[in-house]
């Protein structure tokens, strides 16, 4: 069963001593039998202009592709956009030329704009064949540093964005199960919307999400190195769901969401 991790990070998280390196990510993928990972740079969340962080991410992925030292597993890039940067559309256009880029990630609360602005980003990303990932949160709100005391992005508003741009492929990253359940009636009718499961938790969380929005709408994701990746794997493995559903969550859905071959 193919496992595609729909969200991991490289770089340093500034509020805890954790760092995502290519070597660490490779070890994690091997240990968890993950064949592909969509990866974004932590620094892109914090730099005013994420472009240098994206450049570094793409350099690291390109270096890893050197056949002489190519390890198991494949990395795809999901660079980060700040929609308050005037030339973000040009950035999308340039990023789309890189065959390693399958999506762009926006983080409205980190960069200080309304979720509704993601509609235009979804249209532009779709016009270049890329999926749009919208980061709801990363850290448990109870643990925020005073200088990063951010609310979560509204999942309800992201669903509205997806409904308004049916040609775009939109992935909601790091929503909690309760937030998904609240939007389930509408979200389950949208064929262009997926949810990463990294922040789902609670007894039967995967079963409940499958029942609420359908197994086709869920993507296996780890939020590594922020979270232990094995926690994401075991959530899906322990779920009392049909084997085809498990396969859909682990990999089949991601192929559609990110147009992976």
């Amino acid at each position, binding site marked *: 069963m193919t496992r595609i991790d729909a969200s991991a990070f490289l770089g340093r998280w500034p509020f805890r001593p954790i760092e995502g390196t290519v070597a660490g990510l490779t070890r994690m993928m091997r240990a968890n039998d993950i064949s592909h990972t969509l990866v974004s740079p932590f620094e892109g969340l914090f730099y005013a202009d994420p472009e240098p962080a994206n450049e570094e991410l793409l350099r690291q992925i390109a270096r890893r592709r050197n056949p002489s030292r190519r390890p198991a597993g494949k990395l795809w890039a999901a660079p980060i956009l700040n929609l308050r940067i005037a030339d973000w559309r040009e950035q999308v256009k340039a990023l789309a030329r890189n065959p390693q880029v399958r999506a762009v990630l926006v983080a409205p609360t980190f960069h200080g704009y309304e979720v509704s602005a993601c509609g235009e980003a979804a249209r532009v990303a779709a016009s270049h064949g890329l999926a749009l990932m919208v980061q709801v949160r990363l850290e*448990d709100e109870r643990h925020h540093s005073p200088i990063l005391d951010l609310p979560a992005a509204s999942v309800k508003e992201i669903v509205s964005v997806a409904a308004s741009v049916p040609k775009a492929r939109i992935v909601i990253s790091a929503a909690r199960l309760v937030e998904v359940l609240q939007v389930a009636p509408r979200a389950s009718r949208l064929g262009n919307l997926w949810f990463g499961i990294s922040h789902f938790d609670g*007894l039967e969380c995967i079963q409940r999400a499958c029942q609420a929005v359908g197994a086709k709408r869920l993507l296996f994701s780890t939020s590594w190195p922020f979270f*232990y*990746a*094995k926690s994401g794997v*075991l*959530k899906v493995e322990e779920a009392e769901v049909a084997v085809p559903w498990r396969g859909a969550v682990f990999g089949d859905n991601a192929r559609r969401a990110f147009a992976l071959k």
Partner: protein
Amino acid sequence: MIIDFHAHPGYGKDIATLREEFPPAARAAERCGVRWICLNAIADWSESPNPKAVREGNDAVLSLMASYPDRVLGFCYVNPRYPAQALKEIDRCVVGEGMAGIKLWVACKASDRRVDAIARRAAQLGVPILQHAWYVRRGGLRGESVPADVAAMAKRHPRTMIVMAHLTGAGERGLRDIAPYPNLHVDISGGEPEAGMVELAVKLLGAERVLFGTDTPIRSYGATLGKVLEADLTGGERELILFGNARRLLRRRLGR
């Protein structure tokens, strides 16, 4: 074998609902290789439940102990704001019915003197106390303990075995608060599976003071088990966390 040191039967407030809610947890535990589930019902989930609500919650756990004799170990929840009733309830549930431990939540802080009689009774009976704690950066409940409160309790009661719940909520500061007290442990339940926390707990406390617990149904078995299986530990450390330490603390109930 794995022992889940920290679980709840469900979100319900009465025996019937809790009995209905528990079977999925038992199935999930079995799929993850969990042999024993230490169950506590926090009465009606109010911060300071009255003695009647406390008894009803414990009755639900007793009922599940009877239905799952080879799977469920009961923990007796008590409210220290009702000291006499708390001791009476401990005698009813631990001495009389064979519950394996005592649970304290957020009725008052662990450093409160009203907890002393309960801690002394736990030591006399040779059963552990599971005490909630969290360093909440915003919000938080009036009687909610922080790890420093639990450390104060452990210092006053060195013969009482205490397990502080919620490693992720404690964070590095909480671990340093409790490190000087060898009778004080931490469980890994609750919170998100933030990488590195289990290794940090082992580094600061030693593996013999870290226990596996889920806080189910609030958290899932898979997510919590993943914390231990991915953490950079030796096989021996992993075994201590998953069952060795719990078996030692529960020896009165499980034997040696």
